């Protein structure tokens, strides 16, 4: 009797799952990109001019607004670090809290030699360590060079967060999945600039197509001496910095 009931129940469940599955299959989305956009024709990168960053944090705010990132200080897709290099070679790094006016009082050391801001974000590596480690294949590189996370497939194991040498990923507490900068993929595929680039008041951030000769990025790459973060890791970042101090990690 018990076994019969078990088998009956099992069969009912299977049938139900089948129906649900076919519904899900019917709701399958049509082809991906907006009309007239061909991902294979683009390859995106970003340039950051350290000499121009004023650390105002408008980029951080705009990113949170645009991408529905939780507004608290612990979650962010892009952020700004303040470097203070002292006489004895000690390096102090603080993350700048956007909109915290009075930040001018935060330099404690009297013998600071150099101090500057460094905006950071996902480097959209050409050889991304986060993609290698994902156990379920939820994160991948698109044809136009952007590393995306499939929030439906991500199991929230945090492996990629550990693997990223730049600390660019975080676990979104709303979805419990890994989240990161997408270069504002929904904007760039429509021909708009990423939100952080759009609002930067000093053009410290420059966005464009690496392959194009006419993008502002091409000019940035021609006119500056460039460097990337942690080049020894062979991650081949597509976010390049000009005027980068040797102490920046």
């Amino acid at each position, binding site marked *: 009797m018990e076994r*019969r009931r078990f088998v009956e129940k099992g069969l009912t469940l299977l049938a139900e799952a089948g129906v649900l599955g076919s519904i899900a299959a019917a709701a399958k989305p049509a082809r991906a990109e907006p009309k007239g956009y061909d991902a294979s024709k683009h390859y995106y990168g970003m340039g950051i001019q350290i000499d121009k960053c*004023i650390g105002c944090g408008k980029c951080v705010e*705009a990113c949170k607004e645009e991408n529905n990132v939780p507004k608290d200080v612990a979650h962010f897709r892009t952020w700004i670090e303040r470097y203070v290099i002292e006489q004895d070679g000690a390096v102090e790094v603080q993350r700048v809290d956007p909109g915290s006016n009075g930040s001018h009082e935060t330099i404690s050391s009297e013998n600071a030699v150099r101090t500057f801001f460094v905006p950071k974000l996902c480097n959209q590596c050409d050889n991304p360590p986060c993609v290698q480690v994902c156990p379920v294949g939820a994160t991948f590189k698109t044809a136009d060079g952007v590393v995306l996370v*499939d929030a439906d497939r991500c199991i929230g194991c945090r492996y990629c967060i550990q693997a990223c040498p730049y600390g660019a990923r975080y676990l979104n507490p709303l979805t419990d999945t890994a989240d990161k900068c997408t270069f504002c993929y929904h904007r760039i595929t429509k021909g708009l600039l990423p939100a952080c680039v759009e609002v930067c008041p000093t053009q410290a951030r420059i966005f464009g197509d690496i392959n194009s000769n006419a993008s502002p990025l091409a000019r940035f790459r021609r006119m500056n001496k460039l460097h990337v973060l942690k080049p020894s890791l062979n991650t081949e970042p597509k976010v390049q910095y000009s005027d980068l101090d040797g102490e920046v990690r």
Partner: protein
Amino acid sequence: MKPFFPKLPEAFVRVGIVFALFITTVSFARWMLPASLKNRNEQRQATITRETAKAVHYAGSNACTECHEKTNATKSAGYHRNLSCETCHGATKGHAEDPDVKPATDRRRDACTRCHLYDPSRPTGFPQINPVAHNPLKQCVTCHKPHSPKPPHVPEECQACHAQIARTKEVSPHVRLPCTTCHTVDVQHKVTPREVPAKIPSDRSFCARCHSSESTMKETQKVDFATHGEKYLCWQCHYPHMPELHAYGTKTLR
């Protein structure tokens, strides 16, 4: 217990059930699971679709220029020419789609000091102020037009000799008053300044025109002249070129 399919041998039924289970599982995996769960390319396409379908919040400055040509012309000629409208006005996609939705405009000092507060980490040459010393009780927009910000101007003929006073006054609440508001200056003062000095007000009633509690002047600090320091002349305590220096200490306006 009633037998299950009485005509069939029990072993046969068991094999049949196992077979049916196997068929269902295989067909479920094969035909009923959405392709995005099995095929890597389908899965990626689905992710890209989801990403590109996300809502845009920042309309981009081109959207602003379409309607606000005049403001854009002013802005393009000034120091803020490279700023996107949304840097100060915030995300305006809603406004671009429906002009009745008004974008936020922050007129507080905080909105300006966000970028222009003195900070040693900021690049050299970027315009920065000390908010305590720089006219602490006035909003920035009183003197600096955000679409074309320029420092207010002291008349050059006065500044040529009285540069220190001009610099002091430039960051004080009296910045918008021309020198001639308080000083009557004879033309001869420019030729022989020591023989024909500029005149200063002679009594309290001059300051009272703007600062007494009966005055109708807007945006000025008011006191009751009948009870406030009646034995003294105003400028014995308040330096007219930087009046807040003594009166308010380090109090600043947000």
